[in-house]
């Protein structure tokens, strides 16, 4: 379908219009559900338009990496299941799912959103390990932003399970009231570019035809913690600066929405 609809979408974007009637720099409607999963330490369900992802957090105790004996461990994973889209096939992880997991992971890791030094039980021996899994339920584009938003919400609302130090066992189902030591709220904003027009939050149809994309994770301090470019097209320097300013603005918007949702929960 991509080749067939590309000229139409390019012409539409050139006129600063989107298929759903929103503006170039608008997100689709975002809905957030906090801790929908009873069996995980923390979870989130995020909908951006008809894109839907479920993120679960698991907290475990394990050995730290030898080069960071005084820090906890963060591991992110994404599973593109066939349920989400006919484009996804079962089998070992494909580059797309690895990219999604790593870009979301990097945005959180490099922002130091979790104070990893507070996650140590015994230096060099035992630390808390944070695992988050991103599961798209429905793919209508922009899984990166939905996954990143879901991941940070799930982490912010995750609680430590009970840990029996003597037996060295984690009681996963018994949660304490203690939350993760969060210091930042990194927010990812993904831009697409098609025939010279830059737009926020590409749908699947736009994503299939766009020349290139850039995902920027921004912090409250208006700094970027990570960037990822995809696709074969190019950006100019002005493009990148313009997108960065927009990403900061969108970050503020989403952070507000996220705080509202958290205060309600």
């Amino acid at each position, binding site marked *: 379908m991509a080749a067939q*609809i590309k000229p139409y979408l390019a012409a539409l974007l050139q006129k600063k219009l989107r298929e759903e*009637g929103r503006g170039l720099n608008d997100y689709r409607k975002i809905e957030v559900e906090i801790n929908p999963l009873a069996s995980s330490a923390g979870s989130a369900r995020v909908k951006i338009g008809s894109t839907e992802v479920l993120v679960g957090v698991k907290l475990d105790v394990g050995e730290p990496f030898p080069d960071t004996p005084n820090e906890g461990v963060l591991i992110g994973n994404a599973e593109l299941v066939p349920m989400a889209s006919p484009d996804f096939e079962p089998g070992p992880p494909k580059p797309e799912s690895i990219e999604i997991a790593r870009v979301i992971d990097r945005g959180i890791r490099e922002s130091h959103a979790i104070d990893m030094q507070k996650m140590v039980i015994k230096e060099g021996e035992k630390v808390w390990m944070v695992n988050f899994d991103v599961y798209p339920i429905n793919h209508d584009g922009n899984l990166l932003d939905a996954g990143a938003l879901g991941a940070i919400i799930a982490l912010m609302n995750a609680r430590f399970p009970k840990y029996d130090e003597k037996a060295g066992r984690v009681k996963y189902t018994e949660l304490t009231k203690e939350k993760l030591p969060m210091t930042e709220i990194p927010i990812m904003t993904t831009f697409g570019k098609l025939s010279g027009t830059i737009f926020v939050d590409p749908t699947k149809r736009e994503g299939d035809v766009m020349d290139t994309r850039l995902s920027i994770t921004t912090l409250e301090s208006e700094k970027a913690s990570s960037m990822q470019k995809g696709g074969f097209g190019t950006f100019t320097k002005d493009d990148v600066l313009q997108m960065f300013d927009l990403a900061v603005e969108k970050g503020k918007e989403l952070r507000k929405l996220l705080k509202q949702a958290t205060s309600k929960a």
Partner: protein
Amino acid sequence: MKRGGYIMADKLFVKDHDVVVPGEELAEGLDYLPAGKAFRDGEKIFAATIGLVSVKGHVLKVIPLAGKYMPRRGDVVIAKVTGIGHSGWTLDINSPYMADLNIGEASSEYIDTNRHEMSEYFDIDDYVLCEVITISDAKFVKLTAKFRPYRRLSPGNIIEVSPTKIPRIIGKQGSMINTIKDYSKCEISVGQNGWIWISGEPEQQARVARVIKMIEKEAHKQGLTDRVKNMMEGK
């Protein structure tokens, strides 16, 4: 009522526009004729799928609310080219069955494969407006694109809707689709298989797509024509 020596009571358990579920008993007795996704088992009529009931005289019909496209002879469909062979093309018709377009059915002219590449006529990923000519018992579907208006579709907007909603999108004698065409000045081809091709001014193309999606979503409701007019006027 007396029929064949038996006393029969003809009972109808549903009304027009009722929603029914598979296996639901719709009527008893021999007075009603099942149509669509309704079937007779002995003296009773049941629904075979989830759908809307339509009662017209003695015809009791169940119109499915959801389902895949099942090809029928004479259907106009929009197909996507997925393969090129020695003597024809393989196409996806948004159905469980693939379809074949034989080289003799592709054009009203003679296609000389020594002088022309097959892909000059239909290339992979092209969309073709065509008609179903035959379906074999083994569900081999054959298409034709020999006559107007059947052709390769130029770039435009392709949208996908549930094939069961196509009659509603077309409307009575094409009333709904013609309303949309008149307001939008767009060229629209509706395939029975649920794929719709829209060509015209980009803003109108997007609007038509939104209107059609609205019809798909609200197909079971009444008074859609007025809402379509309002949406097309930009209200």
